[in-house]
């Protein structure tokens, strides 16, 4: 379970000598296996939320718990182990251009010290699941945006993370491809074994998933959450 308790995150702007509030007193609970869309305009705090969850940043105040572990208090040497629970899918894919599709995905396993045998067995399965086996030996610049996004997703999934975070996964894709990728992300959380957080500013696209939980952020605050609205109603 992910739990934000009065989480505030501020940044000090060095150039203007001012404090920027990225997240302001956020309270949020996400259960295991949920598929959640987090929407908001640029600067609403979506990326900060993601960076806090991946423990790239720590809250300025408040508590952020993931499976009962306070991310502010987690030991430094335990951070890598914590991050293994999370699969990250980036807006710009962040694939290594000099690695093939296969090598890009395998890299995520190598980072965790997985054996070559395990890598040889697992990577083809994940590539096949995401329907990019045919592109295994291609380099990222040689494949389409949709295929690059799938490769990035394969890399995020290959270590079987408990939480999958997709940051603006459709930002660089055509509408048709966006829908396809979004369907794929939703399906990855369908069995309830994996929490999927999709961060996007494309409100129109997620209107197709109105039955899922949608949290709206504005200027660092949660302004609507379909889950709590349901409770209130």
């Amino acid at each position, binding site marked *: 379970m992910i739990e934000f308790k009065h989480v505030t995150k501020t940044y000090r702007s060095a150039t203007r000598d001012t404090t920027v509030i990225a997240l302001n007193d956020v309270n949020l609970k996400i259960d295991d296996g949920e598929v959640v869309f987090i929407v908001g305009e640029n600067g609403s705090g979506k990326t900060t939320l993601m960076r806090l969850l991946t423990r790239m940043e720590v809250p300025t105040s408040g508590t952020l718990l993931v499976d009962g572990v306070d991310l502010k208090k987690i030991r430094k040497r335990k951070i890598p182990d914590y991050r293994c629970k999370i699969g990250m899918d980036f807006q710009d894919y962040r694939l290594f251009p000099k690695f093939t599709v296969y090598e890009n995905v395998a*890299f995520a396993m190598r980072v965790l010290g997985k054996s070559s045998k395990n890598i040889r067995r697992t990577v083809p399965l994940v590539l096949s699941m995401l329907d990019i086996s045919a592109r295994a030996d291609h380099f990222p610049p040689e494949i389409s945006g949709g295929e690059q996004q799938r490769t990035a997703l394969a890399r995020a999934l290959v270590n079987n993370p408990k939480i999958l975070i997709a940051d603006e996964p459709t930002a660089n894709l055509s509408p048709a491809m966006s829908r396809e990728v979004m369907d794929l992300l939703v399906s990855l959380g369908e069995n309830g074994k994996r929490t999927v957080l999709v961060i996007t500013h494309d409100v129109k696209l997620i209107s197709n998933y109105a039955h899922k939980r949608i949290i709206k952020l504005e200027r660092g605050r949660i302004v609507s959450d379909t889950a709590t609205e349901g409770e209130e109603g």
Partner: protein
Amino acid sequence: MRRYSLSYLMSRSFKGFSRNGLMSLASVLILTSCMLISGSFGLIIYNLYVNLHSLNELNEIVCMCNYDKLPDEQYAELQTRLTELPNVDSVEFTSREEALQLMREKYAQHPQLLDHFNEENNPFFEVYTITYSGSDQDATNLLFTLRNKNEFPEFRTVSDRIETANTLEKLKNTILWIFGGFMIVLVFISIVIIMNTVRMAIAARREEIEIMRYIGATGWFISFPFMMESFITGLISAVIAFGLQFLTYDYMIRLLTSDASTAGIITIIPFSQVWYWVALGFVVLGFITSYIGAKISLSKYIKV
């Protein structure tokens, strides 16, 4: 427990080293220069030490007689007086003719040097070589007596190896200080260069590092290739410096032994007797500078 493939990490390190191209080359060159200067100073000091040691071992005082030749019986009488002095073990007399002959034998390869000397214009003097035993104070007392013109007016100069040894000792200490200063500056420069190389390597791979962090890479996994790259720099520098040191030392030996004025006077340690110390020194120097340089940069620029 994560078990990383060492061969995979090593291949990443070598790739990183070659990818860093010019900066790696600059580091190698600076580090090589640092090692070469250190090695040269070290070898000079060691050779001085050996020469100094052999001088100290010879408890000898050399007394040179006045140029005006004395009757033979006076030389014999002088030898008896010297032998009776306290702490004197032996007294050896060398006539000016014997001295000329000895020098001719010593410089047999350069006969032209002494060819024009004969009995009439012999430039040498009668010499007494005294060996003694006892403490430094005994040696000083003996010297004092021998230099007393009232007691021994026959002597032109009285020289001992102690003074030469002291002069060389001072020279050795001066070189040691210069060497120490140079070493500190060069090691500092090497560390800064390596720090900068690692910093640039980190900057070039910032995105890669960021992705590794997101995936869950440990600090060790991220840092290892950079640390190894530094060690590779240190090792390559050590190998090049060793080769250059051998060539320069060999050249210096040939130069000094071929020169008649220095041949036979200076003892030069052959490289074959010291090569392992030189190699070890270079490897240790390379290891220390690359470790410190990389460690500072990694702790400054890589966050887990």
